[in-house]
Each structure stands twice: as C-alpha cells, then as structure tokens.
C-alpha cells in the first residue's frame, strides 16, 4: 500500500469516526428545532425542513428552565470564585514558602482527590442537614469549595514562574507579606487563575448527584437536575426534551471551544477534583 493511499485511508476512517462521535450532538440540535410531525417522521432526517423554536418555548413554559439556568449560574459562580481564591492562597504558600508541615499538608490536600464525592456524600449530606443547608445555595456548593487540582496548578505556577527576587525586592522596600501577595503575586498569576477557574466552572456546572440530593424543591434545581426530572415527566416530548438538553449543554460546549487547549492538557494531566 502506498503512503498516500494509507494516509487517505487513515483520514477516511478518522473522519467517519468523527461523524459518529459528533452525531448525537447534531441529532440533539436538529430534533430541538423540528416541529412535532418531523420528529417522528419516517424515514428520519437530520436537518429540520421547517425549523421552529416552539420546542424551546414549550420547554421554558412547562418547566422553570430559566430558574434552573439561574441556579446553575449562581452555583457555578460561587464555586468558581471560592475555588480560585482558596487555590491561589494555598498554592502561593506551598509554592513560595517552607514551613513545618508544608509537604504533609500539601500531600493531604492532594490525597483527598483520590476519593470521589460519592464515597462520602452520605455523611456530608448529614452535616448539611444539621446546618440547615439542605436546599440552599451554600449546601449545593459545599463540596465544590476547594479543588486539589487547583491548589496543585497554583503551586506549580508560583513555584516555577514567579521569581523570588521580585518578592524579596518588595520585602526590602518594607511591604508586608499580605501586601506582596495581593499586589505582586496575584496580578502575576492571572493566567493560571483563569485555568483553575475554567476547571472549577465546568465541574460545578456538570455536577449531578450532589445537587440531586441536596436540592429538594423545584426552584432550587440546577440545569442538570431540572433536565433530568423534566425528561422523566415528558419522556415522549422529544422536541422539548432535546431543547432543554441543548440549553444545558451549550454553555459548557462554548467554554470548551474557547479554551480547549488549556482544557485538554489540564484534564489529561489530572482528571478533576
């Protein structure tokens, strides 16, 4: 087999497989814009012939998807801000200072990432219950306030990319440690912080089992939980269900398309948590 033929064959296979991989997304998008008769048309077709937004209208009218979306936004924003803050603070200390217990504490932070939330969700739920945090935003973000991987990224950044001389110069000028952190370290670390923010946001938005447990009334459902209940009730209304699915998936797909380099590299490195 000649090299050109083999290359052509490789591309043909990869492209065919790419079509299979992307098909469910196209099918979701296509169905969501089809009027009812087209959805059940035989033989089926991908592109709507008479596109309509009625499925979206119906989805938003029968279920409070706007509220679900808002809840997801609030939880994602809270989680992202807190994770960036805790990761930056901890990463700075681990990356720039030596103190008794530093390695042990750092390793402990990292080690907790081994166990998925599902292993300890029962006691955590009981704690939330004792605190009256069930069905509240704080309760829903509680497991998403720290991220081991975030601490790790920030420690790597401060340890390797921020020169000690810069900090020492400020110390000689008499700046306090806290001021050095805020005025020198944080402004220098914005790109690393942005990377942590992306991971935190994706993690919070896509979380399912925890909001499913903690959100007990419909007005507190996230997009994921709301969609899960919606499709349970309106199973056969594939137009409205795929419309809801599109709205739920789109923010993450958009974030991924914008920041995909950071994301694939970062995730490959760590997984989440």
């Amino acid at each position, binding site marked *: 087999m000649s090299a050109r033929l083999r290359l052509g064959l490789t591309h043909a296979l990869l492209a065919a497989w790419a079509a299979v991989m992307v098909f469910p997304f196209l099918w979701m998008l296509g169905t969501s814009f089809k009027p009812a008769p087209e959805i059940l048309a035989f033989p089926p077709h991908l592109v709507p012939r008479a596109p309509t937004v009625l499925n979206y209208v119906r989805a938003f009218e029968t279920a409070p998807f706007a509220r679900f979306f808002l809840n997801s936004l609030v939880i994602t924003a809270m989680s992202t801000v807190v994770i960036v803050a805790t990761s930056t603070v901890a990463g700075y200390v681990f990356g720039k200072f030596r103190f008794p217990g530093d390695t042990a504490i750092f390793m402990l932070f990292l080690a907790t990432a081994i166990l998925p939330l599902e*292993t300890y969700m029962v006691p955590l739920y009981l704690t939330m219950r004792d605190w009256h945090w069930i069905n509240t935003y704080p309760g829903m973000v509680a*497991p998403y*306030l720290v991220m081991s991987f975030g601490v790790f990224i920030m420690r790597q950044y401060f340890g390797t990319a921020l020169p000690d001389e810069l900090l020492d110069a400020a110390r000689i000028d008499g700046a306090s440690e806290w001021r050095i952190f805020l005025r020198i370290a944080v402004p220098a670390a914005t790109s690393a912080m942005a990377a942590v923010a992306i991971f935190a946001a994706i993690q919070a938005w896509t979380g399912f089992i925890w909001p499913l447990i903690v959100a007990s009334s419909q007005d507190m459902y996230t997009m994921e939980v709301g969609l899960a209940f919606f499709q349970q009730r309106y199973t056969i209304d594939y137009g409205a269900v795929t419309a809801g699915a599109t709205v739920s998936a789109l923010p993450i797909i958009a974030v991924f398309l914008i920041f995909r380099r950071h994301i694939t590299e970062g995730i490959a490195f760590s997984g989440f948590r």
Partner: protein
Amino acid sequence: MLFRYIFCYAMLLVPAAFFLVFRIIPIAQTLRLSFFSWDLISRTKPYVGLDNFRTLLDDSNFRLALSNTTVFAAVTVVASVVLALLIALPLARRLRFEGIYQLVYFLPFITPTVPEAVVWKWIYDARYGILNYVLSWFGIPPVGWLLEPRTTLWAVIIMSVWKTLGYNMVLFIIGLRAIPAEYNEAGLIDGATGWRFFRYLTLPLLMPTLLLVTVISTIGAYNVFTQVYIMAADIQGSPGSVVRVLIYDIFENAFRFYRMGYASAEATVFFAIVLVLTLAQFRVLRSRTE
C-alpha cells in the same frame, strides 16, 4: 522567621478548614457510620459492629449492583481503551486536521452527562429511534434497547464508551509523543513495520501509559451513575432501577430508604475498591520512574 510561619498558617486557614470539613471529616465519618444503624429520624443510633457488612453480603440488590457495575466497568474500559489507542496512534503523528479530530473526539467527555444521556435515550427509542432505523438497513429487526436490563446495560455501555473515549485518547497521545524519536528511528532501520513495529516497539514503551489509563478508566467506570439514572428508568419512570449499579444502590439506600449506616457500609466497600485501584496505579507509576 516565626512571622513568616504565622503568615503561612494564616493563609492556609480557610482552605484547610474547607478540606477538613467538606472532605476529610466526611470521609472518616463514612467509615465510622458504617458500624451504626440509623434511619435519619430515630433518636438512637445503635452500634451494630460488622452487621451492615454481613447484611451486604446477602443483599441481592447489592450483589446485583456489584456484578452489573463490574460487567459495565470491564466492557467499557476494554472497549474505550482499545478504541482510544487506535485513534491516538495516527493522531500522535501530528497529521493534518489533528486539532479538529481531537476536538470532536473530546467533546462528549467535557459535555455534561445529563443532556447527553437524554439524547442517547432518544437515539435508542424503540419505535422512533434513529439507531433502530439505521439497523433496519442491515435487516436487523427493531430492538427495545431500554426496555429490559440486558440490552439497557449494553446501551449504557455504548454511550459510556462514546463519552470516555476522548479522555483516554488525550492521555495516549501524550504518552505516544513522549516516546523518544530515537526508538522509532531504530525500529525503522531494523525494518520493523506495521503490526510488528507496534507490537515490539511502541506497545512496550507505551505500557506505563496503558496501565495508567486502564486504572483511571476503571475507577471512573465504577463511579458510573448519571447516565444510568437517566437511561435505565423503568416503565413507571422510576429512574436508574433497570440496571442497578453501585452508586445507585448507595443513593437509594441512603436517600430513599434512609438507611444511613447501611449506605455508608456500602460506600466503604466502594471506597475500598477505589483505594485498591489507586494503589495499583501508584505501583505502576513507581515502576515507571524506576
């Protein structure tokens, strides 16, 4: 110097408190709670020793969940690792459109699982689903994919392979690109090509990555919940009950039957599975650095 230390500990106060309260203490409590029996309402929380674990051994739901999850994990991991490797081999050589291929293959991994599972449910629809339509081209009669446990398990496996493939692919591409060019050149000089080249050169050098990917995928597969919850709903709409998996069983015992101690015992078993797999992973990583 002392002042520096105080600064460090002060900075760590909030992150450490969060790690402690929202992770470390709950982890410890899972283990503790597994020795108690508690229904969330009773004032008493009797200590029952290993009773929860003994009951688990005879619990048909738990055994079913464990066997379903194991079958799911075995098939999903093997299929998604093999497919990911097949895709990563050409992509690691930096061919044209490589970025677009990677983007498309990775998309299902990053997208939230609920909308994906919802769409797959529509694809699997027995009467109007596109999958049965495509199968009909090959003369295959319609399959009621999500109507009985066996086919539902397969349906969830196919969806999960689709979802996790891209992640494994990225790890393989990194692993393949880390193989020093001299090895490949040496192989070419020796005249090794195609399958022999892969079998005797690439594969041994890729072994650490392969083992790592396998372990990570296995942990992920044992953790399966969301797609099962959505896709394996029974006729009455009770979610996740057609194919019982481990996390679903924990979820049900804790939050439907309020058997907190029992669910914790089950979570402890899950904990042990994850820990064993992780230790295996560390051994692999250590043997790689040695």
